[in-house]
């Protein structure tokens, strides 16, 4: 069995023969990571430890170290290799590890569990049953590891390497068919043929609007100019979306390879990746990947002896949501305030420094190499009639399995939320899902059977957006949710155009009145007419789509708005000003923290005895709710 060469031992620069040799040496090892072979005693095992952002946050690095120490302590260092890989998707179960070829997942690892995994499974060849990832189906059947619907129901194209390869190893990327597509583009296909494949595949931009990628490439290829740029938009600003981050952390080279391919097709020598400052781990792994690619001659002059030159630089954002808008993003790269400008001219004609510029988001780029390798027909065979391929969703919120999932376009929301996501964590009924973040809208549970694609979501008043899917149970107030998103838009508005700067502020004020219990029925009409004006007149996508969360909640949950303004009641029990507070006699331990926190002396009681709320003095601020350590204080 081949071992990983230290990266320093890779010949520099690589030739095509070297690429073939690396693939030959490592492909079997990589293949075993993708399939389960239980029951046999392998010559060599690997323990893949998820080192995605969420797992690192819960100390996956120390779990990996503990595994290495235990493996060495058991004298297994030649039989077991510990590999840190990208995001496996099931963020809720972190720190998560997968033992291959057995295909056994171990969730929520800690040093004690690590000890048992090493002694019982790695040394003793018996998977640790009580630690293995398991899932009970509604029918009461127990499923394990890869059979768990969260993994079994996915189809991974953009995430194909995430959780499989070591993102720091260029060899593993190469062995996982990496740079094979670039070889085709440099040596076998004409740029126009590449363009035809991308167009025929039906790939649409995964950043939000869903513009056909092949068409965009064609515009930039046809644009006149000797200097052109390729840009990757990794300014993933939608709160609750983290698929781009995971791709950059888990498979940075696929983005770099795709950009190199586009450089050849459109005639560009320079690429930029614009990534959020909030993603330090993604930046670190990208920097490492770019350095590796340079060292192997896969970036720089004369790539693989083809004469094609391409370089990639990282530009780090500085926390402005509007910079995800393409014209604002380019201004930010130029060192300006990130304010958008009217289009046309589109970036394809006048982009970065007024040169033709091809801009795609991370997930779009990650789809490019597999499309070239497996063909346009294969890709176009997945998905719905107008939305091809797969889509990565970041599942978060009230759902049980928080994490990253990739499914074919056209699956239903119910499938994603109930089967893959495992339903509601709280056991309360599923109420709605917000897709597309602050630019999107909510999909009510009643529409959960609609197949998800660009068009169907638009009809529901939501958008695909970048793929953030926030799941809500019945405890979320939809008016408060709309207020939350609008506050975000107001905060992030760049201030350049009045509809967005002033209009969204007026809408926010109105919503604040409603959630504070001072709303009037006319306010709902005002919200609708303001929204229509802003949508029609704002300068950029941020402003034009800003009112969407209000419009879609008004459309699907109007009765909730009416309950707030007519009955002065918050059905979900979230709007503090509309709640009546009381103290549960069973749960109150008489600590007195609530009385201390109350600014209006509405809570009375003696220490170690049950306290009570004087409703006449209560100003509905909710301070007591925050202060109560036992959950005895309830608002309803």
């Amino acid at each position, binding site marked *: 069995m081949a071992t990983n060469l230290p990266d320093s031992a890779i010949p520099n620069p690589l030739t095509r023969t070297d690429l073939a040799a690396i693939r030959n040496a490592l492909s079997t090892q990589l293949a075993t990571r993708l399939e389960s072979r239980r029951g046999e005693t392998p010559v060599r095992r690997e323990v893949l430890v998820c080192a995605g952002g969420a797992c690192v946050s819960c100390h996956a690095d120390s779990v990996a170290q503990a595994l290495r120490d235990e493996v060495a302590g058991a004298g297994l260092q030649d039989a077991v290799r510990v590999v840190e890989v990208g995001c496996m998707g099931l963020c809720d179960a972190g720190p998560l590890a997968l033992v291959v070829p057995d295909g056994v997942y171990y969730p929520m690892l800690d040093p004690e569990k690590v000890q048992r995994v090493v002694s019982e499974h790695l040394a003793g060849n018996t998977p640790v049953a009580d630690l293995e990832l398991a899932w009970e189906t509604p029918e009461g059947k127990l499923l394990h590891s890869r059979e768990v619907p969260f993994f079994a129901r996915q189809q991974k194209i953009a995430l194909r390497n995430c959780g499989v390869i070591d993102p720091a190893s260029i060899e593993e990327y190469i062995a996982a068919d990496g740079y094979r597509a670039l070889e085709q583009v440099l040596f076998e296909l004409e740029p126009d043929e590449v363009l035809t494949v991308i167009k025929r595949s039906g790939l649409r931009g995964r950043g939000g609007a869903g513009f056909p990628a092949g068409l965009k490439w064609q515009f930039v290829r046809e644009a006149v100019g000797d200097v052109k740029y390729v840009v990757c938009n990794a300014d993933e600003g939608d*709160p609750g979306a983290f698929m781009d981050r995971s791709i950059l952390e888990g498979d940075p080279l696929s983005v770099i390879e795709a950009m190199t391919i586009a450089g050849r097709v459109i005639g560009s020598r320079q690429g930029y990746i614009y990534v959020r400052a909030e993603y330090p781990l993604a930046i670190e792994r990208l920097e490492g990947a770019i350095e590796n690619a340079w060292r192997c001659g896969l970036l720089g002059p004369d790539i693989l002896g083809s004469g094609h030159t391409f370089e990639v630089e990282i530009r780090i954002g500085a926390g402005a*949501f509007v910079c995800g808008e393409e014209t604002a993003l380019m201004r930010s790269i130029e060192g300006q305030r990130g304010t958008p400008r009217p289009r046309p001219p589109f970036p394809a004609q006048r982009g970065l420094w007024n040169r033709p510029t091809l801009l795609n988001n991370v997930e779009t780029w990650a789809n490019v190499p597999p499309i070239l390798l497996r063909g346009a027909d294969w890709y176009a065979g997945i998905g719905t009639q107008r939305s091809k391929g797969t889509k990565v969703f970041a599942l978060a919120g009230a759902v049980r399995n928080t*994490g990253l999932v990739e499914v074919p376009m056209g699956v239903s929301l119910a499938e994603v939320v109930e089967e893959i996501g495992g339903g509601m964590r709280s056991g309360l009924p599923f109420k709605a899902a917000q897709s597309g973040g602050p630019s999107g809208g909510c999909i009510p549970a009643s529409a959960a059977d609609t197949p998800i694609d660009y068009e169907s979501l638009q009809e529901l008043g939501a958008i695909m957006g970048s793929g953030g899917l926030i799941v809500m149970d019945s405890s979320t107030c939809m008016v408060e949710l709309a207020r939350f998103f609008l506050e975000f838009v107001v905060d992030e508005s760049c201030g350049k155009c009045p509809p967005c700067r002033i209009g969204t502020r007026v809408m926010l004020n109105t919503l604040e009145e409603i959630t504070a219990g001072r709303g009037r029925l006319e306010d709902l009409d005002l919200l609708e007419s303001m929204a229509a004006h802003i949508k029609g007149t704002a300068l950029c996508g941020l402003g034009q789509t800003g009112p969407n969360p209000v419009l879609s909640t008004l459309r699907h949950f109007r009765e909730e708005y009416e309950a707030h303004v007519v009955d002065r009641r918050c059905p979900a029990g979230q709007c503090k000003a509309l709640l009546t507070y009381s103290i549960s006699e069973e749960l109150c331990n008489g600590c007195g923290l609530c009385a201390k926190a109350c600014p209006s002396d509405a809570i009375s009681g003696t220490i170690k005895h049950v306290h009570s709320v004087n409703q006449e003095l209560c100003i509905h601020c909710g301070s007591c709710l925050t202060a109560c350590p036992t959950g005895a204080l309830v608002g309803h």
Partner: protein
Amino acid sequence: MNERTGVEERQRTTGELPGFFGTHEPLPADEIRPEVWDLIDQWVAAHPGGRERLIPLLHRVQEEIGYLPFPVQEYVAQQLALSPIEVYGVVSFYHFFTTNPRGRYQLKVCMGTACFVRQGQRVLEAIESLLAIGIGDVTEDRLFSLEQVRCIGACGLAPAMMVNDEVHGHLTATEVRKLVRKLRARARRESAASAEEEASGDEPA
């Protein structure tokens, strides 16, 4: 290195400003370590180019001193041949840049949607009432500063916050109280340790 103009020299030595932000109080120049000016000089020399260097340079400087006081902004403007207002315009536009000093422990409460759905607001309120500071403020002892951030991507741990670079998840008001107590104790321990070190370091001399 090229010769300095009189203005630059004066600014570097006294913190006095050539005008634009000069009347702003308090003037934090005396807090700025002299190495910062050299850092800016060296960075500019190592990165030839134009205006596109501004944001990367501001990142580098803020990484070093934690915030971007006005004298530093002016110096950056001079070195990149921009006007101070162009630099200030960029600093004030982007949330990531701050002109306020930060605390030893920077509490960054995630206000992403997942944390919102799981009651992140309560975490923020708990901190505000506990430390008696608002968003963007720093406690008087400079121990804690409070910010809200957009999605730190730890949605699985929601509601979550970062203390400097460390993520803390599944927070409740009680957890927050414990954490603040722990950080205060840690700070006391560390300053006691460094005081001891200083004292023992003095002895041989």
